[in-house]
């Protein structure tokens, strides 16, 4: 039985951008619907129940953020935010409000397709790091059952906080994790007072898990937004 191709909703007010995205997504085997405004976007999102939403933040009839806040938390459809340079605040706000990932315009189609694949996979697959599911990428292996971390087969000793942070990143693997979400998850409510803790512990994690901490390949920085743990393409 053939499974219907995933349906992707494109919310963007620029017709050329919509048509290029639609063409690229069709070529990659997805179905698309398009919405030029926030209102259409919301109505399509509720009416067609797409598998994923590509949301431009600069819409003529309102902030893209409001679409995220309207859908969340009731509707879990993955949302990838498309932002222009200089919209960093809005981007982070959308991510903190529950958007799954972001891309800064202009982006390459390969990048977009990779993000879509990750988002769709996360939407219906069990999450690494939860329910004892192990994670492996870039030579690093995380076994949440035994709380064991190894790199190239060699056991790595992590402090409890380092492990907690690593696990938070693993659960979000392939997607961006914002500073705020990581801080709250690892340090709880007191996090706001010590925003630099996250940076310091990330540096420690990189020292233990990366070959060259100043050129990370596993624990990537998303400047101004947060961190992204890469996920082995399977």
């Amino acid at each position, binding site marked *: 039985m053939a499974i219907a191709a995933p349906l992707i909703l494109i919310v963007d007010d620029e017709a050329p951008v919509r048509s290029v995205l639609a063409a690229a997504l069709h070529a990659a085997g997805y179905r698309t619907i398009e919405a030029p405004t926030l209102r259409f976007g919301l109505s399509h999102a509720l009416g067609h129940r797409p598998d994923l939403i590509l949301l431009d933040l600069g819409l003529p009839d309102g902030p893209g953020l409001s679409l995220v806040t309207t859908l969340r938390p009731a509707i879990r459809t993955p949302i990838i935010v498309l932002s222009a*340079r*200089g919209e960093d605040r809005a981007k982070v706000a959308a991510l903190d409000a529950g958007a799954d990932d972001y891309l800064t315009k202009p982006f390459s189609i390969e990048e977009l397709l990779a993000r879509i694949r990750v988002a769709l996979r996360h939407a219906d697959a069990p999450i690494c790091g939860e329910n004892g599911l192990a994670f492996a990428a870039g030579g690093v292996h995380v076994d949440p059952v035994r709380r064991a971390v190894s790199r190239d087969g060699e056991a790595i000793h992590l*402090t409890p906080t380092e492990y907690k942070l690593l696990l938070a990143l693993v659960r979000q693997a392939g997607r961006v994790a914002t500073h705020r979400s990581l801080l709250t998850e690892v340090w709880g409510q007191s996090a706001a007072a010590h925003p630099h803790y996250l*940076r*310091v512990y990330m540096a420690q994690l990189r020292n233990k898990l990366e070959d060259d*901490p*100043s050129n990370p390949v596993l624990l990537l*920085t998303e*400047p101004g937004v947060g961190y992204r743990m890469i996920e082995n393409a399977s």
Partner: protein
Amino acid sequence: MIHLGHATTAGSTPSSSERHLLVGAWLFWPLVLAGVLGLALRTHLRTVDLAMLMLLAVVVASSRTGPFLAALAALLAIAAFDILFVPPYYTFSVDDASYLLTFVVMLAVGLAVGQLTARLREEALARRRRSIVTDAALALTDELSDIRDPLVMVGAAARILADAIGRETRVLLADEVLDIEEVAATIPIEASDHGIRDALLPILAETSDHGTSVDGWFVQAIGVGSPPRGIVVISPASDPEGELLPMDMLNALAERLGLHVDRNRLLVRHERAQIEIAAERLRTALLSSVSHDLRTPLAAIEGAAGTLLLEPASDIPTDVRVRLLRTIHDEADRMNRLIGNLLEMVRLESGVVPVHATWQPVEEVVGTARHRVAERIASHPLTVALAHDLPLVFIDELLFEQVLVNLLDNAIRHTPVGTRIDIRGRVADKQLELEVADRGQGFTPTALGTDFSSFARGGMHEDRPSTAGLGLGLSICQGIMIAHGGTIRIRSRAGGGAALNLRLPLGDPPAPPPTGLDAD
């Protein structure tokens, strides 16, 4: 706005009464001494010798006093001589009339010495005044030539004048035309309610070459222009007799100060004009470089797309088609970077870029910058050497990343493929020092060591010929570094190549996370 310089005198000059005492002593003691000595030796000496003794006393006394007191000294000496040494003793009567001649000689000597002393003293005084004026004029030239800030200038001028003249001095300088009300409010002198204010009015109404003296106060306008831009106010001498400089010399000094004020004003205006010209030149250079840099990729894109549209798809060999498409892709990417820099520049220039600084490791921002140029830098081996003990730095990660990306792009663009690029980071002088260095042609000697703004202004095209927005990228770097309280400088590398040196004050990093809570 009015700048006020105010200086009081530091040294203490002898007061009037002290001086009188001093003069009295010189009048009194030689005579008394000669009298006593004469009395003691009266029996052993001839009267003529005693006369010589008294004459000596007159010479000593009159050489230390004025002509009037010298005459007084002579008369006293004559009287004393007559009473003490001319028989009959202790009376004014004189037995031998020839002593009258002695009296006349004594008086004549006293008067002559007194006159001579007075003239000598006057000459010495005149010399001293001249040297005071000369020294003060020299000091004004020395100290004021390099001063641009009017507030510093009036302060220095007031101090020089007060030191030289020995009187409390105020110098007022206005950015615009002097406003009498404002001036009166600025001078905190008791006399402002009477005298000075009245004296100021005519001075401000028209420029006068000469100062005015009111109740011992000296007031003179300085600087060309009517109404004047500044005034000098010198308070009365504490001791009217001790007043050293006459009006014409005060005038001369005030005039000299006026020359400096005018010169300084012209200089500042000239420098400002120079800066504006340089800024204009920069704008023009940027504009031409930007329009060139934007059109180049556009031309490539248009050409490639046009070719693809023109020919039936089947007629174009696959490899050519891929190459054309790759061109469109790469050139669009290049344009995007350029436009990004351009927007950043506009935002920096308009001052709307808020710096969202947070404490973070240097390593991280170096990592993101490397990530962003990863594709382009593949052609150049890169070494990164960051000291292990680098503290957290307070930076806006997006802006700082842009600095590093621009510097790396710059190095990639201006060095041949395969040339090594070095990033080095260390702490020096409580500053983070981060350097992006290449082994290219380097910069011309004129660009080396100079401040960045002057580099950006001064012919970026001469320094490195093929500029794809070089000036723009580096200007942005400078803008961002300034916004962080840091600096950027060009250094020439030993062994060839250019090094761009970033310095950032370390500040006071927050406490590291407590490790105790994170024990195993």
